[in-house]
């Protein structure tokens, strides 16, 4: 295992590539999620506001 992690002495480069890529992919997905959730909340609020206006 340790040998695997050492990557024949190239650990910083190999893991630096793979981990940064994994990290940013996760960030992209989380950001999408977050944006979607925000948008949904916003749309619902707007729908409520429109209803409120219509009731007036």
């Amino acid at each position, binding site marked *: 295992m340790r040998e695997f992690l050492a990557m024949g002495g190239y650990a910083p480069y190999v893991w630096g590539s793979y981990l940064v890529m994994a990290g940013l992919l996760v960030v992209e997905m989380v950001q999408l999620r977050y944006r*979607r959730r925000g948008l949904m909340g916003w749309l619902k609020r707007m729908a409520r506001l429109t209803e409120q206006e219509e009731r007036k």
Partner: protein
Amino acid sequence: MSERSIQWFRFTAPANFYDLAGRLIPWFAALTIALFAVGLYLGLVVAPPDYQQGDSYRIMYIHVPTAWMGMFLYVLMAVYAAIGLIWRIKMAEIMAKAIAPTGALMTFFALWTGALWGRPTWGVYWVWDARLTSMLILLFLYLGYMALHAAIDDRQRASNASAVLAMVGVVNVPIIYFSVQWWNTLHQGASITVTDAPTMATIMFVTLLIMTLAAWMYSIAVVLARARIEVLERERKATWVRERLETES
């Protein structure tokens, strides 16, 4: 009657896309995970070290797919943008906009992994090599596209304007590539060039193929997801959005 059918058509096309994409995304996501799992296992564990570069060559498994993805997505983005601009098809505009961030990210990965690969191979993180430089410029083109899109408040105008930019960019990319290549060979001998991987073993080739597919699947899934959000934002007034809101909460 005819008026009504036109309205109907206009408002359901995005709705159709929204539903279809919603159904497709889980599949692409699953494929992404499976392919990445297999590819990573093959690439990091099974494949033997390179006889020249040792284990550092394993960066190739993400470097090459992301580099291809970055370049391909730019062309795709420009094509969608052109379709959107010329035939005024909303979905094409949305797709163009949705592709940009992922394309930029892929380009960035290619740069980042290339830099980290360059250090053990060439001794430096960065050289002003033709291929590297033109990749960097591609990243700038992506960033410019996104910056222009973000700077214009009116959605329609933003799509049209950035479509012009994407098209100009796509014409320029080959010009830039050749001029950069020429520039480099002019100033210095080919003391440093991207060395071809040694005659690729089958396992390496298969792994590379799988990782490339994984990058494809990932890009498709993420772009579709982003396009869905865009559709919702644009069509927020439409009745179908309200229906989806009620069912999805």
